[in-house]
């Protein structure tokens, strides 16, 4: 622990409340241009996702054989695809579907992972040992292949993509949760709470978990990017969502079918959408990680 004398030694008990740290974080955000770029991208994406029906100039599912594979024009800024669908509209609606998939995958792995990690840390002993070894095994699995295997096993669809992209994130969360929990378990929080007669479950979930959530939240921001990429990868090899869905990976996959025909707009714009979205989440997560880590302020 490197404590510079300019700052009072931070002890666990003395850490300021979450709201204060959050305010500090927000202040810090302003001093961190890359994170701000990330935040702007993420907020923009979320807005696009929410208001997709309003923003999108066309119905993304409307096939129009009159305007097949048109390059970008004033009528279709991003051109049209092989079915005459408006690529811009598809990309906009894609934000909705992709964010939904990523959010579901992250939440699923976060919930399962943190519960496993928390219980494991709290229980200790054999339970902890066995759980963590299982996590070791999962973590040693080749990631994409495992996702492919799961997707293959349960068949295509949105739910499949969510499950396939989330399973291998579970160990990460469990480990993180456990590492945060172990010192926390010994801290005043737990002692104080048990001394006033809280039950174990109560202690576990009411007191310890909230104090571990910040690093997990930061980690999730980074996981978002991965989830989007992995979902796109699954779509590319045909194990993803429905072909006609407005999902970025599926759009790229369809676009690549016309790669040699030079219809670059069909695959480039969804590709850029993914790149921008993932970049946004990564920059934001990276920045948050810096800011919420007291040592790197």
């Amino acid at each position, binding site marked *: 622990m*490197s404590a*510079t004398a300019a700052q009072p030694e931070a002890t666990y008990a003395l850490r300021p409340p979450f709201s204060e740290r959050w305010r500090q974080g927000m202040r810090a955000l302003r001093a961190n*241009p*890359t994170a701000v770029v990330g935040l702007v991208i993420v907020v923009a994406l979320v807005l696009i996702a929410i208001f997709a029906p309003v923003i999108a100039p066309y119905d993304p599912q409307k096939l129009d054989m009159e305007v097949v594979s048109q390059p970008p024009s004033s009528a279709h800024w991003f051109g049209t695809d092989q079915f005459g669908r408006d690529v811009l509209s598809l990309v906009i609606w894609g934000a909705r579907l992709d964010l939904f998939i990523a959010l579901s995958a992250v939440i699923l792995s976060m919930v399962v992972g943190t519960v496993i990690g928390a219980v494991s840390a709290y229980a200790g002993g054999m339970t902890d040992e066995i759980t963590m*070894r*299982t996590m*070791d*095994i*999962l973590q*040693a*699995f*080749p*990631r*994409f*292949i*495992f996702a*492919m*295997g*799961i997707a*293959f*096993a349960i*068949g295509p669809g949105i739910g499949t993509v969510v499950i396939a992209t989330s399973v291998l994130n579970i160990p990460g969360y469990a480990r993180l949760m456990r590492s945060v929990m172990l010192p926390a378990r010994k801290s005043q929080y737990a002692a104080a709470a048990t001394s006033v007669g809280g039950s174990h479950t109560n202690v576990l979930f009411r007191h310890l978990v909230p104090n571990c959530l910040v690093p997990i939240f930061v980690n999730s921001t980074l996981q978002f*990017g991965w989830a989007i*990429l992995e979902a*796109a*990868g699954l779509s*590319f*090899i045909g194990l993803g969502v429905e072909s006609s869905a407005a999902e970025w*990976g599926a759009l*790229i996959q369809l676009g*690549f079918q016309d*790669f040699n025909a030079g219809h670059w707009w069909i*695959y480039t714009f969804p*590709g850029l959408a*993914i*790149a*921008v979205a*993932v*970049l946004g989440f*990564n*920059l934001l997560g*990276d920045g948050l*990680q810096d800011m919420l880590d007291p*040592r*790197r302020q």
Partner: protein
Amino acid sequence: MRMLRYILRRLLFLVPVVLGSIFIAFLLTRVVPGNPIERVAGPYASEERVLEMKAEANLDKPIPQQFLIYVNDLLHGDMGMSYTTAQPVGKDLKERFPASFELVMFAIGLAIVLAIPLGVVSAVKRGSWIDHVARVIAVAGVSAPIFWIAMVLLSIFYGKLGWLPGSQGRLPIIMSPPPHVTGMYTIDALLAGDPVTFKEALRALILPVLTLALVSMAPIARMTRATMIDALDSDYVRTATSLGIPRRTVVMKHAFKNAIIPVLTLIAGVIGYAIGGEVLIELIFSWPGLGLYSYNAIMSADFPAVQGFIILATCLYILIYLIVDVITALLDPRVEY
């Protein structure tokens, strides 16, 4: 000797992990609906033939028994026969391994060469525009989908410019591989003293390696930056500075050496990820490695091949971690062994 004992102890400790991975790999293939025999047999095979084939593959037995048979075979070095290549899985994996290994090693090497300086510069110039640019560069590589990068790189450097070979695998199609020693064409070509083959093997590696390196860079750069910042803020760096040790020496000798140890562990993870994760790269570049093999295996429900690959990948992952642990133990006097 002490190190050897340490390695043995670590290996022993890993036995349950390997067993567990075998079990999960086995389970994963058994939850797949249906079974591969019907597909392999085709629509024309008679029912008796299908049953016969199932019996041969032990798929007619209860799953626990299948597992025991599988583990028993494994212990005898038999990973089963692949349904897609009609060859023993062990032989398949052995043939594919050098192709993937060569690709991954070059890529990780490139990623390290690019990412670590980026991370170090970022940390040393923390908060400056250099830091921000370096961080964006590092993160940008991991942001675009890997298959998208691969396709675009190919269309530019092969399709448009013709500078680099296209999706034709490890050597130009009409060239035959150098005499087999390691299975890694660049090394084998050098051993054979064949500069032309070496050059071509290297050229074939450029694009897939670049693609894989781009996605491997970000975590390494990010981790280097973080550990480097910690190290630069550390008490021992302050001590060295307070004693007037030149800045260069402080940064490179004290801070960097300390910062790199956790990065090594991360690199192990990145290698592990790459070995199983370059499926899409191998697919697009027609690279006859483990990724393409496992892709074909999964897409054709080739149980033994999928299981074999997962077990190999898991063992490799563990092995890499072990190697890193050993390196760490050698570098860091605090590690007890």
